[in-house]
């Protein structure tokens, strides 16, 4: 059995009275590509936000390489309002800001691209390297960190070259075509030295040809950087082609999980996507 990278257990995210993610349990093992799919509004991005610390889940636990990174139980107002299950599952509260979680080795991209628009491609990648530098603001200001700075610049250039973005390194991020912006966002995530890459709809807005290329690209970077990939996607052909396992969410609940072939046959998945046939 492969080493467990990401373990999500009983995660529930409730906003007021709305349960966006309900009792989600997911396991991602080392070297796998795992997909999370589901109709619009199923709670996929919310699940990502719970993992990366953008939201604090109402209940449940997330661990990364066996270390608990997020853990919560219904507290305060939620004690009364809580509508999910397994109320008593966690007793500890572990909460971290997104930057700490990124530092542990979880990088992500966003559904609607979030690049630093007024900065160049090169700067976008350099910023991702900032957190791993040993400098402080005085050594950085007075250029006493020049060795480190030079190393970081060289690494960033190498990364841009590998990703085929070297030619546009001095362009503003906002001036790039859509597909290249997506590539840059992935390159920027790779620059944080991740062990786990979370991709939130990487193929959104791409045509079949581009989607095809993206699928190859994801497999390629996974092997090259020894990554584990957890992705959200709507394009079924992409998901079916590259995923080792698939989790299907509907209205916040996990309705199916298995290999591509298994999931495709699952009756509940077909119902969630195509609707239920009504009896005439």
């Amino acid at each position, binding site marked *: 059995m492969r080493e467990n990278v990401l373990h999500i257990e009983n995660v529930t995210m409730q906003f007021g009275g709305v349960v966006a993610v309900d009792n989600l349990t997911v396991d991602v093992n080392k070297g796998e590509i795992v997909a999370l799919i589901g109709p619009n509004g199923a709670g996929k991005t919310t699940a990502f936000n719970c993992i*990366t610390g*953008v939201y604090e889940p109402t209940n449940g636990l997330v661990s990364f390489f066996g270390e608990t990174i997020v853990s919560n139980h219904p507290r305060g107002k939620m004690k009364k309002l809580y509508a999910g299950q397994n109320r008593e599952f966690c007793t500890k509260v572990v909460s971290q*800001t*997104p*930057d*700490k979680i*990124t*530092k542990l080795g979880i*990088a*992500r991209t*966003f559904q609607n691209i*979030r*690049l*630093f*628009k*007024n*900065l160049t491609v090169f*700067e976008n990648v*350099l*910023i*991702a*390297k*900032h*957190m*791993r*530098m040993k*400098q402080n*603001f005085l050594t*950085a*200001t*007075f*250029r006493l*960190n020049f060795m480190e*700075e030079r190393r*970081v610049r060289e690494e960033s250039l190498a990364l841009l070259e590998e990703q085929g973005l070297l030619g546009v390194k001095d362009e503003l991020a906002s001036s790039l075509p859509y597909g290249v912006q997506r590539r840059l966002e992935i390159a*920027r995530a790779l620059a*944080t030295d991740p062990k786990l890459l979370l991709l939130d709809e990487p193929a959104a807005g791409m045509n079949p040809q581009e989607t095809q290329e993206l699928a190859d690209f994801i497999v390629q970077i996974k092997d090259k950087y020894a990554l584990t990939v957890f992705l959200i996607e709507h394009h079924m052909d992409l998901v079916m082609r590259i995923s080792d396992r698939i989790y299907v969410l509907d209205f916040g609940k996990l309705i199916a999980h298995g290999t591509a072939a298994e999931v495709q046959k699952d009756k509940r998945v077909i119902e969630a996507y195509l609707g239920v046939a009504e009896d005439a």
Partner: protein
Amino acid sequence: MDMKKLIKTAGPIALLFLLLFVLEKTLPTTSMLFVVLKKGAIYALVAVSMNLLNGFTGLFSLGQAGFMLIGAYTYGILTIPLEAREAVYQYFDGGIVSFTVPVLVAIAAAGLVTAVFAYLIGLPVLRLKSDYLAIATLGFAEIIRAVFQWDKLGPVTNGSNLLKRFPVFTSTLFPFAVAGVCIAVIVLLINSSYGRAFKAIRDDEIAAEAMGINLAKHKQMSFTISSFFAGIGGALLAMYQTTVQAAAFRATMTYEILLIVVIGGIGSVTGSCLASFLFIACSEWWLRFLDEVTYIGAFQVPLLSSGFRKVVFSVIVMIIVLFYSRGIMGTKEFSLDALFRFFKKRFGKTKKEDVAG
């Protein structure tokens, strides 16, 4: 390569100082030019420090006057000569500070004390965003102004009375040198890895955090450093004015600095510097004639009377904001190279047209 770059940056600066030196030797010391240059240099420093916060980190803060006040008072309190203290602190038995420090040490102390205050204020305030942050910092600046005038603090701050008789500068070179060094340090910071992190926060906080940038730490850092330099600006202003009184550091002062930042271009250091000199020149010198009742022969020029200057000035500001909504420089930086390129393009074009004609 590096040598050439060094000459390119150091050359114009050396020339500038030489020019200032020659001007001081030739022009009468009462010339308005020196008023503009001195005050302009000080405001340039404060505007650049505000730009670090507003333009590069995306934190809309309006506390600059308050921080300048702390800097000005720190400088004054630490440098009033011992023999003058009895007279200055006449209502407070000569005050309780019984030592003086050298001028440059006092200027550095002004920055440090301001930075400490800013750090403490930043802890609660920086949790707020955009307009709310502006209101909170503005509030703090007003509170600082009130606290410094409080009678109970009189032995330190001299209550609502003036601080005076501290060492001042007479040469224009002094504020230029201090402000120049400070602005250079700010530019170095902006171009460092931390500067990039600040700009990342400005562009997209959520993405910055996802890239591992600790928002609280970096915002706090930017706020504290910006205030450090505002404090130094305050100390220079105290030297320029020769007296310090808390009542002078009103919100209006912050608005003036904000205006300079906006006119110069939010996110442009050289823009702030240029705008600062233009602003001071307009408000102190070039538009002065509008305030004076003028006669041409027996005919009194209409409208020209006390206060009209401000009307014209407001109109100019409105025109700039309407037609140059991103400021004089936008987010670009002024450089001699760019200036040469600009003229080359212009003249190159005309030459070609000549040939064609």
